[in-house]
């Protein structure tokens, strides 16, 4: 594990992208396949299981050291992290010297850590203490982090794929694709991941393509272009999804790479009518049969996370897949084709299907309409209509563009109604006052900093309906990690889209940003905390004059 600990330290210390990629590549190249696989899973945040709570480790530390609890808590308040606090306090434990323990990362992850978690209280404490005594300097922190599931490195997934590309000689896009749909850390998975294209084993049929992502619109990039070169669509207020039909099976993936088939049985049924080797990119929504527009995010929430929904729910909140791109047809990868051709093929496919099935089942698959745009002057007016059709803004996609991997600026733009929006992670909650005195209704949210840590960004009090508040209150009570007086820190797992009117630089805030009128737009159960926004996206909003202009207009 020393090599991995060294890598983490190197990543922490090097500021430059090139140095970080080199460090990653060197490590992945040198590591045994099984260790490399685990390093990769950890770096990509794909493995973060909590085996022992931070509270339990704290208890072991307190019992052995005899430190008063309040002093431990003062230390924690200064450090901000239990795993690190304990690592710094180890000398207080006066552990007997032990021969150094050096095990491979895979051994720790596959054998030793799960074994520790399975032990009973007394035996567990002794085993943890023995490990603390034997771990070389610098590994205790990592060990505590891995054990409590809080491990996170401040390295963007893009840098990891770049390093993998250096190691394997494969294209970054190919690697990003191979990493989609989950990566189960094992030597075999690592070898398959890095295998040359020609002798690579057949890809799992479930594997989705990396989603092409849009950037917030920068109008100055458009002004010089011909509006006819762009496909304009509504930006739907649902969740992004990929529908795969291959070899007689259906896979519905959320953008967070979760398989959500079980929540949407009616879409599974619809997908059976698709030809084998078809992959659609689109938006999951709830859309009542006779309604002119989707039912909004609230009803969709009722469907998300509900496995095997009952007949009543299916009737009240029927799902629809609004298709806007065709990524694969006849088992051919269409992504290199220009959007204009993919669109033609998509229209044909949707029409065929709609003609083949009777209404209302036809409503299960809808085509995202292309909106007419004669000149750029019409763009604002068009965007203002978004709300009236249940959309949250506009999408602009370059007609001659291939389907990109991840966020490729300039190919897809989003032009939202809300002046500013970010997805943030719930960090702290505090009880409200008056009527809501018994409920946790005051929330503090964080964004990712460049080092993979969540930094407090905004507080918000409003935006959820009563049933959501109640549900979140229960969740908060079950997932409290620490208490600071009336404030509870919670597991950083829940993502919320926050809307706000403006941003300002501020030295008084830890994020360096003050947020104007933040409010919760929606609870993003479809999002994993890793997919939440970063401080750098907030800074990009701050520096984007277009966003500021639209704020002034409102």
């Amino acid at each position, binding site marked *: 594990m020393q090599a991995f600990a060294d890598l983490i330290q190197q990543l*922490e*210390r*090097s*500021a430059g992208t090139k140095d970080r990629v080199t460090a990653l590549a060197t490590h992945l190249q040198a590591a045994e396949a099984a260790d490399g696989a685990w390093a990769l899973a950890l770096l990509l945040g794909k493995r973060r299981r909590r085996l022992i709570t931070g509270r339990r480790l704290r208890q072991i530390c307190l019992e052995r050291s005899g*430190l*008063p609890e*309040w*002093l431990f808590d*003062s*230390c*924690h*308040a*200064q*450090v*901000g*992290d239990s*795993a*690190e*606090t304990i690592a*710094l*306090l180890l*000398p*207080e434990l006066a552990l007997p010297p032990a021969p150094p323990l050096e095990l491979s990362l895979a051994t720790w992850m596959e054998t030793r850590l799960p074994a520790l978690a399975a032990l009973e209280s007394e035996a567990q404490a002794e085993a943890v203490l023995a490990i603390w005594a034997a771990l070389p300097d610098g590994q205790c922190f990592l060990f505590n982090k891995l054990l409590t599931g*809080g491990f*996170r490195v401040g390295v963007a997934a893009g840098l990891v794929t770049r390093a993998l590309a250096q190691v394997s000689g494969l294209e970054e896009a190919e690697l990003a694709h191979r990493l989609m749909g989950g990566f189960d850390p094992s030597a075999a998975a690592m070898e398959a991941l890095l295998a040359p294209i020609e002798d690579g084993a057949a890809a799992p049929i479930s594997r989705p393509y990396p989603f092409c992502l849009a950037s917030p619109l920068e109008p100055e990039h458009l002004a010089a272009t011909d509006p006819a070169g762009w496909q304009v669509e509504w930006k739907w207020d649902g969740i992004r999804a990929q529908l795969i039909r291959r070899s007689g099976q259906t896979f519905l993936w959320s953008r967070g790479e979760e398989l959500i088939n079980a929540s949407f049985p009616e879409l599974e049924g619809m997908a059976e009518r698709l030809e084998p080797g078809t992959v659609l990119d689109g938006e999951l929504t709830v859309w009542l049969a006779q309604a002119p527009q989707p039912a909004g995010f609230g009803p969709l929430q009722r469907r998300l996370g509900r496995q095997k929904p009952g007949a009543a729910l299916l009737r009240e909140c029927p799902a629809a897949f609004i298709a806007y791109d065709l990524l694969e047809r006849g088992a051919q990868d269409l992504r290199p084709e220009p959007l204009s051709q993919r669109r033609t093929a998509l229209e044909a496919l949707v029409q065929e299907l709609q003609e083949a099935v009777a209404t209302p089942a036809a409503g299960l698959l809808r085509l995202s309409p292309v909106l007419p745009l004669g000149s750029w002057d019409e763009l604002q007016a068009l965007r203002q209509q978004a709300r009236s059709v249940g959309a949250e803004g506009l999408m602009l996609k370059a007609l001659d563009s291939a389907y990109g991997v991840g966020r490729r600026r300039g190919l897809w733009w989003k032009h939202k109604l809300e002046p500013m929006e970010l997805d943030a992670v719930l*960090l702290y909650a505090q009880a409200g006052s008056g009527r809501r005195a018994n409920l946790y209704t005051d929330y503090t949210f*964080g964004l990712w*900093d460049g*080092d993979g*840590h*969540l*930094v*407090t960004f905004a507080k918000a009090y409003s935006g959820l309906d009563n049933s959501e508040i109640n549900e979140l209150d229960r969740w908060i009570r079950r997932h409290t990690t*620490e208490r*600071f007086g009336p404030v509870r*820190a919670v597991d*950083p797992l829940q993502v919320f889209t926050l809307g706000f009117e403006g941003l300002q630089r501020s030295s008084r805030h*830890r994020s360096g940003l003050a947020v104007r009128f933040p409010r919760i737009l929606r609870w993003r159960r479809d999002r994993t905390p890793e997919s939440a926004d970063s401080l750098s996206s907030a800074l990009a909003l701050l520096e984007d004059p277009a966003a500021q202009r639209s704020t002034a207009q409102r």
Partner: protein
Amino acid sequence: MALPGDGLIQLTPQGLYCPAADAWIDPWRPVSRALITHGHADHARPGCGAYWAVRSGEGVLRQRLGSGIALTGVGYGEELRLGEALVSFHSAGHVLGSAQIRITAGDETWLISGDYKRDDDPSCAPFEPVTADVLITEATFGLPIYRWRPGRQVAAEILSWWREAPQRPSLLFAYAFGKAQRLLAELAALGVEEEVLLHGAVQTLMAPYRSAGVVLPPTRPLSELPRGESLAGRLVIAPPSAHRSPWMKRFKAPQTAFVSGWMAVRGARRRRGFERGFALSDHADWDGLLRSVHDCGARQVYVTHGNSDGLARFLREERGLAAEPLGRAFVGQRSEEGELEGAAAPSVA
């Protein structure tokens, strides 16, 4: 909590005051007579009528407070009579010329620790344990997470950090008075004979150290270097206030590091925005504080600065000592050299 109003040492708006000696210790505002523990800006302020301080600290004090100040230099351990009181200065091991001040009057002895550390430091005299009935101690790093490694070891890491980047300038940020010279002395002890470049703020403090006979590598102010001369592979020491200031424009792709006790915590390292943080302090760590309180043998302890509440509570509840934090008066008196970041807000990591 304040000091008793009739004690040997009292807390006044100007700072700690000894009526028997009619003198203040490290006063915050101009007073007639000031006993100075050391030259850091939060302990030595200009405008007092008369000063007493350790002779080896005289050069720094005159430079910072004015060459014309009425300053009486005192040797370590030398006993002075001031009014009704006997006053002596004892080495604090903090920086060149730093002292703990011991005051006896009637049948009572008080010790004001000033800033101190117990670790080896080739740039100043070592800490001298002193007994007293009442101790006023600092607690800048009064938490058990702070535990220093030997300065020589940290200096060796800094040396390899510097050596491993021969193609970039190495910018090391350290407090200008004390830390910078301690690092230079440690580097000299590691065999460094190569010239080190200095920011102006560090440069002004070199003369007192050289005349005190501290062994240091050759140094030169950066400003004396011809414009355009390559700084690749050079070590430059500057105060933390120069970080991200226009002064940095001179350097092409420098690697940066900050040397401070606060760097023991990852969160503090990240927030400060330096590539590297080296944990090295001229203040006592947790063990150093406890050891010094023990060595002093005082029946009553007052705690100032940093985690004063926590250290006092620990001494009271875990060691059975009469110990109290000395109020908020000391908070906010810190300058750059004793910089407090305050308790960090909890973060999720």
